[in-house]
């Protein structure tokens, strides 16, 4: 047992003698303000990577053309059907839909709401996100219903020698 208060006059280092809890001064107003300042710092640091990728895009490094990637053969995709593929990376899900003889559309099919995979419903003629029933126009990729507000990124495709190739991801026209 400590005898620091057992002297006369005793060495008083708190005001009331009877408050002796651990960390009792930890979340006073000053500590709370320090926490707030620290949170502001966390916000500042966490906005750095966003700034970095935005600067990278502004300098045109993100505009690069990806190597053309074969999606499927024309003969394997009947009109009105869809096929899923990956473009440009191995983890970027995309969907190709054949609308008519020579009309193909392709989108990156991560829903612009919360990135669920959007799929093609042939009977209803629209693209549907199963998570919150977001719907997208199949011709433009624009959202038509539900929570998503941004269009799906479109992928340019090219037909060459009876095969369909993904060429590049189109920019938004904001």
């Amino acid at each position, binding site marked *: 047992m400590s005898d620091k208060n057992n002297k006369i006059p005793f060495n008083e280092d708190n005001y009331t003698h009877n408050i002796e809890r651990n960390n009792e001064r930890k979340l006073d107003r000053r500590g709370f303000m320090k926490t707030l300042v620290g949170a*502001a710092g966390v916000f500042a640091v966490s906005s750095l990577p966003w700034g970095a990728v935005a600067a990278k895009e502004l300098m045109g490094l993100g505009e690069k053309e990806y190597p053309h990637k074969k999606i499927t053969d024309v003969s394997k995709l009947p009109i009105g059907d869809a096929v899923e593929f990956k473009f440009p990376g191995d983890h970027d899900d995309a969907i190709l839909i054949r609308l008519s003889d020579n009309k193909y559309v392709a989108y990156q099919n991560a829903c612009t709401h919360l990135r669920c995979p959007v799929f093609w419903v042939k009977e209803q003629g629209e693209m549907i996100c199963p998570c919150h029933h977001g719907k997208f126009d199949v011709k433009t990729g624009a959202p038509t219903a539900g929570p998503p507000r941004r269009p799906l990124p479109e992928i340019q495709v090219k037909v060459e020698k009876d095969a369909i190739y993904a060429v590049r991801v189109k920019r938004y026209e904001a």
Partner: protein
Amino acid sequence: MKRRYLGVIILAGILLMNIIFTQYMVHQYYYENYENVLIFGGLNIVLFPLAVFAYKKTINMRA
């Protein structure tokens, strides 16, 4: 002891602005308006020294 809550209020306001700027920044990124991303990211970073300044100014303020 008279309490002064001015510092707490200012810091809470700064944090609120942090949240708003971050939200704008992320949304503008996905809209591909990259200039706006840089603007809001910069504002977010500027808010931090501002918060430190507000803390130091108000912490020893006497009533």
